[in-house]
């Protein structure tokens, strides 16, 4: 008989992994939509690179999750065959590519969080998570530089680009608080010293992000209200459409090798 305590631990670890992995998956998917449609070849290549990095990371996470799952699931089963309510990504990463300012704003707001998370996670006693983070942090550090540079270019560019970048930051800001909201799995894994207490770098996050915004001639929003839900599986109405495409092949042709 399986030890229920070990099972619970695995369940928490499993959920914890998904909380991280789903962010990368959905953001990679959003970036994938842009491939071939970017404002220049150079940005097209760079955004595809980021998408590829995120996909690579997310595959490592899902492979790990598959390994500890009791149900003999593959990485693709986990990534592509859950129902919407079971995806744990935050609302920020599922926001649409409304215009390039939104693409950059979403990336920028995520990258700083992501970098700080990887910084901590590379010291996790969980060797696999730590290894993924150690590899990932180099990539994420590049993402962060890329998105910050573009925030500066657009913020401190023309009047129009400043307006558009500000609009995106204003719209996306309300999703930042959720990054630091902790699900039960996060709390449990953090208690066990494996997962990261994300709230511990919340202040640092807002400080660093605000500095870049100020350097970029942009105003730091002063929201009192934030929106959350994604990390508990209650997504925005965009998510259903993302999944309709993401899952299309697996749903239409179940149980096949590709």
């Amino acid at each position: 008989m399986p030890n229920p305590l070990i099972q619970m631990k695995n369940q928490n670890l499993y959920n914890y992994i998904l909380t991280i992995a789903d962010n990368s998956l959905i953001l990679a998917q959003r970036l994938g939509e842009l491939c071939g449609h970017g404002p220049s070849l150079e940005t097209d290549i760079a955004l595809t690179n980021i998408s590829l990095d995120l996909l690579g990371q997310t595959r490592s996470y899902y492979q790990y999750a598959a390994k500890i799952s009791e149900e003999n699931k593959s990485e693709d089963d986990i990534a592509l065959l859950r129902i919407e309510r079971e995806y744990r990504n935050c609302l920020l990463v599922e926001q649409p590519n409304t215009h390039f300012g939104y693409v950059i704003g979403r990336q920028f707001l995520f990258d700083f969080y992501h970098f700080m998370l990887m910084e901590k996670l590379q010291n996790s006693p969980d060797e696999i998570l730590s290894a993924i983070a150690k590899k990932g942090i180099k990539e994420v550090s590049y993402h962060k530089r890329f998105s910050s540079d573009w925030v500066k270019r657009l913020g401190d560019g023309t009047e129009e680009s400043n307006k558009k970048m500000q609009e995106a930051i204003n719209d996306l800001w309300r999703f930042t608080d959720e990054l630091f909201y902790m699900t039960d799995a996060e709390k449990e894994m953090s208690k066990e010293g494996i997962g990261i207490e994300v709230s511990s770098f919340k202040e640092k996050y807002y400080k660093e992000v605000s500095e870049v915004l100020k350097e970029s001639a942009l105003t730091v929003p002063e929201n009192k209200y934030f929106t959350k839900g994604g990390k508990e599986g209650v997504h925005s109405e965009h998510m259903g459409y993302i999944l309709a495409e993401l899952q299309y092949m697996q749903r239409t042709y179940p149980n096949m090798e590709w």
Partner: protein
Amino acid sequence: MSEKEVKNLEEIFEARIARDEKIEPKDWMPEKYRQTHIRQMSQHAHSEIIGMLPEGNWITRAPSLRRKAALLAKVQDEAGHGLYLYSACETLGISRDELYEQLHSGKAKYSSIFNYPTVTWADMGAIGWLVDGAAIINQVPLCNTSFGPYARAMVRVCKEESFHQRQGYEIMLTLCRGSEEQKAMAQDALNRWWWPSLMMLGPTDAESIHTEQSMKWKLKRKSNDELRQQFIDQTVPQADLLGITVPDLDLKFNEETGSYDFGEINWDEFWQVVKGHGPCNKERMSARVNAWNNGEWIRDAAMEHAEKNEKRKVAKAS
């Protein structure tokens, strides 16, 4: 320069090419050589960029994470090819903006194959296998072409293309070893991409222009019909290996020539698509034009920002 001097330069130039020396951007070259190379290299670059679209269409729907990553990487490679082909082109004194303008206005062409829709996942396999396969056959000889930047770009392009081709074939192989539905999907893709792939190798020699000059400049080493035969001879056994059937009732191995005889190509369709009336010509062009137009404020911002930075640096220094 007197006519005689030009004539002299031209003779030296042609002799260099004959000796297999590379021509470099700073070298003297006949205006026609320059124009021909701009036309061909930019057409090639445009094809890479437009070619991102039919495959890009399946990125969000790729059936597995592994395939999604491989497809993204492939499309990214194409962007990269575009980038260094444009750069090679720019060494001849034309700007990237001018090249885009030629594409967007319809003045410049791109490979017609990309005006067909990607209808199923198997098309990702068929494009890699057939389209990249035909492209390689067109391009390998260009690794030794006379214009240095083009030749060097092509070395890199061909290396990556041949990786893409193997990847495409491997997608087909997986499908053909899979379920009945998957095999049908592979067969269907072959049915739809076979003839357009043959057309990729250009009009028949009888209809082809520029050939003689191109041969001399090593922009071409074999005729279109020779290349097409080479493609067919290489590809048919691969289809056999997959266990799917080339959609040509006239296809037959000819013991005498050691090559495959094949059926009539629908040249009407070829010219319809070349002239801009294929299934997706409008969609491809408007995707590119939209990307360009929507990108204007971003390019402006980047330039403005760079100028501001420059000014700040100067102000600081003084």
